[in-house]
């Protein structure tokens, strides 16, 4: 078999031809903001209150830093979530994520060992779930967060049935 030096220039590993990407729910961004940025904001509020009550003015810039970091985080989370994509192809599942550090994983259905669906308490409040694929390799990092519970269930069943159909051993 030939090697792959003669690839067409400009081809992008993160944009395989003929793939339409499914996006995850923007509610994932909300969840991540709740978990990541809201505590920071609370700290900022507490700091401000302390600054006012104790008239420690030097605390105000600290509070401002907290607010800035929280703002930056929630902006970042939004970008990160919009970069997550997955696509079911005929023989494999594609998962990609990241803007600065981009990553794409191809998992052939036949290699699937089992599928996990998880939803934490905050996830459930916002109605999202995470689907994680497991192959025999621990390095396979194929998890899709931020799916609606229906989509998660559909994906789980679809993956499992395709895995059965194209089963390959180790």
């Amino acid at each position: 078999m030939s090697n792959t030096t003669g690839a067409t220039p400009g081809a992008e590993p993160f944009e395989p031809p003929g793939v339409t990407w499914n996006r995850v729910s923007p509610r994932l961004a909300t969840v991540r903001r709740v978990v990541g940025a809201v505590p920071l904001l609370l700290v900022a509020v507490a700091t401000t209150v302390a600054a006012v009550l104790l008239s420690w003015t030097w605390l105000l810039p600290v509070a401002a830093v907290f607010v800035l970091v929280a703002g930056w985080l929630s902006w970042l989370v939004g970008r990160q979530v919009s970069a997550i994509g997955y696509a079911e192809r005929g023989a494999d599942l594609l998962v990609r994520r990241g803007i600065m550090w981009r990553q794409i994983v191809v998992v052939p259905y036949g290699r699937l060992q089992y599928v996990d669906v998880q939803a934490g308490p905050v996830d459930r409040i916002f109605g999202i779930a995470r689907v994680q694929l497991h192959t025999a390799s621990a390095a396979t990092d194929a998890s899709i967060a931020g799916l609606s519970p229906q989509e998660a269930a559909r994906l789980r069943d679809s993956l499992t049935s395709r895995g059965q159909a194209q089963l390959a051993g180790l």
Partner: protein
Amino acid sequence: MNRAVNQAADQVPLGPPAAAADGQWHRVHPLTPAIRSWQIFAVLLVYLAQDFGQTALRGDVGDSPAGQLSKLNGRWLAGGGLVALVVLVLGLTLAYLSWRMTRYRVTADALELQHGVLSRRQRQARLDRLQAVDIVQPLLARIFGLARLTLEVAGGGDSRIELSYLTERQAQRLRNHLLAAAAGVRYETEEAPEAPEHLVFEVPLQRLVGSLLLSSVTVWLLLVTAGLAVSVVVFDRFEFVAGVLPAALGAGSVIWRRFSTGFGFRVATSPDGLRLRHGLLEQRTQTVPPGRVQAVQLRQPLLWRAAGWWLVEVNVAGYGGRQNDEKHTDAGLLLPVGTRDEAVAVLSFVLPDLGVTDSEHPGPVVDAGLSGRLGEGGFAASPRRAHWIDPIGWSRNGFRVTSSALLLRSGVLHRRLDVVPHARTQSCGVTQGPLQRRLGLASFALHSTPGPIRPVVEHLDTAVAARLLEEQARRAQAARAAAGPERWMERPAPSPAPSAAGGLQQPAEPAEGSGIE
């Protein structure tokens, strides 16, 4: 997770019941509790010694009258002795109970183990899922002629079955049966025939010692010692020594472990796969059946280059995934140190078909993988602009696709060649950082089962990486479909005649289970 383990024993034995596979429940050797609980004795000894030392110390420091002191001593000793006795009795009782409650059973296609005093555990392993069989003899067991048999099936975390201890003879007979059953060999005799073994080579002691002397740990140790000597001479202070001592001891134990693991390393081939024997105090005999190797790595640290030595490691499902477990950290070691020819020979034993086309010999391809640069041997390499990120190693980053495997090459100073059969590719991925993106580069990773090898090729041209990603998933699929059966001796004859054993065989991959469950 481990369905094979949870399954009830409802399978009817296929072949004639053989001695090793009589389907009866057996106990492990009665000496097992003694050998297992030697640690208890050791702990007791340490405790007593400590206790003794403490009381002695008190005696030194205390300024109480001598009579009172001796009384105190006596009381302390009596208390310690009582505690020791209770611990001893408890330990022995527990060990005895644990022995009484442990039993195993072998059938034609499964191995079952029941154990546990308070919570009973039962585990059953399907033999066609067998990944490797080890016979391990720790020093004490060896003195008594006993051995532990470890059967690896590939389940998520801890999925192996350990039978400890059996007599050496039992362990060998059992191993032969397990391998025969896993290979799909049917035998009429009382015992499973032992597969003939052909010793290929052994690692000479001098070479092992040399390889350890030329390891980075040794060099580091020497540097630190030299630095210490200088500092002691210059500053006339010995405190530094105490500061560095723990690290030095750690390094020493690493060297010792490598030495004791690599001691008397012998590699043999047999129809059952590669047989490895090694170990100084704890002797280990490993059998890795064909087709169970998920990935191979040949590597050469910088210091070994003059001597031309190579090290070979493999990923075997079941061996990896428990790096914390000290007993098994070296399980994937195929050759602790060998010449280039030996390393290549070992590679060809575990992966007989490198899939190089007829017009080409595999030799040059492997050579290019071991020591070549850039495009030698048909490798696709990193483009020149990769040197901005990887100024030293860029010229060896590369891969080569053959019809049966992917060869990944890296490292200019510390040379590495990873070989992953297409049929063993689990999944693959591409990553790209901001710098790589600016340069139009991306890194490609193959995901193999847990183990020492993580096959990666860094800084490929994005287009090349894209195409490799696209094609590798397809190749993995196709190769797996065409791969031989799990039971390696049932390989069909070249002619597509129906197999002789008729209804005994199942298809290579029974539809109801996959390799790992």
